[in-house]
């Protein structure tokens, strides 16, 4: 296995990309500027079109 991957941004897209890469056995460095990951989606109550909880 070669080098790892840098993911910049820990919102829903960055988290998904990181998990996909990690599950393929690739080392991931996930950088987020806020104190914790979660991004905009964590500010939402429910999401469309299913009205499921976002977190």
């Amino acid at each position, binding site marked *: *296995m*070669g*080098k*790892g*991957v*840098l*993911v*910049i*941004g*820990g*919102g*829903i*897209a*960055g*988290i*998904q*990309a*990181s*998990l*996909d*890469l*990690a599950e*393929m*056995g*690739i*080392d*991931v*460095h*996930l*950088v*987020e*500027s*806020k*104190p*914790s*990951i*979660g*991004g*905009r*989606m*964590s*500010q*939402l*109550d*429910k*999401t*469309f*079109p299913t*009205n499921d909880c976002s*977190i």
Partner: protein
Amino acid sequence: MLDAGRHPRIELLAYSDVIDVSGSVGDFRVKVRRRARYVDEERCTACGLCVEKCPKKVPDEFDMTLRERRAIYLYFAQGIPAVMTIDPDACIYFEKGKCRVCERVCEREAIDFEQSERDVELDVGAIVVATGLDLFDPSQLVEYGYGRIPNVITGLEYERLINATGPTQGHLLRPSDGKLAERVGYVQCVGSRDTRYCNYCSSICCMCSIKDAMLAREHDPKSMSYIFHTDFRNAGKWFQRYQIRGEEDYGIEYIRGRVAEITEDDEHNPVLWFEDTRTGAVSSLTVDLVVLATAAVPSRGTAEIARLLTLEVDEHGFIRGNGRSGEETSVEGIFACGFCRGPADIPESVCQASAAAALAARIVVCRK
């Protein structure tokens, strides 16, 4: 979120910024600055004793400044990593040289005022950019009175109000007097599809407002919602059905027409002035609360990341694709996904993320 925090192959560098990037595909060298939390991540259990005792209050950014947090704070309850952070711009110790109450009450000895920022260097084969979105500042549209009329709020502020963990425990209490808002007007295309500001459709706001109106009715059966829209652009899977359900099952009234102006009456009730484009009639509607569906724009950090990585952006600041795919940027080995590329909802962002991950994997697995 929790899975990402726990995965043995994911190194989580939160409260950190990428400050320098060099090299090329297969061999990037990256410098990341880890800002000082003044809290030991290993020791802190986020028990909250320090927050209870911290004497300094500042507006809470996560709750869209609708409530206050302390100078030492947990960014949000379910956040990963679940550790406290001291905001040095707010902390009394950093301003006046004394206080350190948090340090005295912390049973885990996790407070560390000596902590300083530190840089870490990474060697990586590929980079995925997912810097997301910010919201357009609607105070620029003075005719809508945001910032001047207290009961005109943004969609994201509404999200925090209707959220059980938010500042009003999920009750839709309007800012001017804390009264339960029963009649809510939603104004679409605030900044979006507007040649003066964001000359594009933000794509998520029609569905967001329908969802917000449904939530209001679920919380309060007497709630009435009015959505003022240019035209609905609900093109995703099951979206049309969702729109119809909003009208039939949740009693939402859809009014086709862009709101021209918002004023307020003597009791701080916002008054929406509009032309119903189906009838041509100019009319007004008085409500308890107005929610502005603001345009979404690339996040503030996106421009700086694009500059560091020498990525091409379009006229709105969104990261450009390379013509072969949206995920491939103008620089080989660097991929982008989510709203930093342009308007995308959650399922679309997740698809793009998986595509970007697959493309990045192709580089690091095949080039040894």
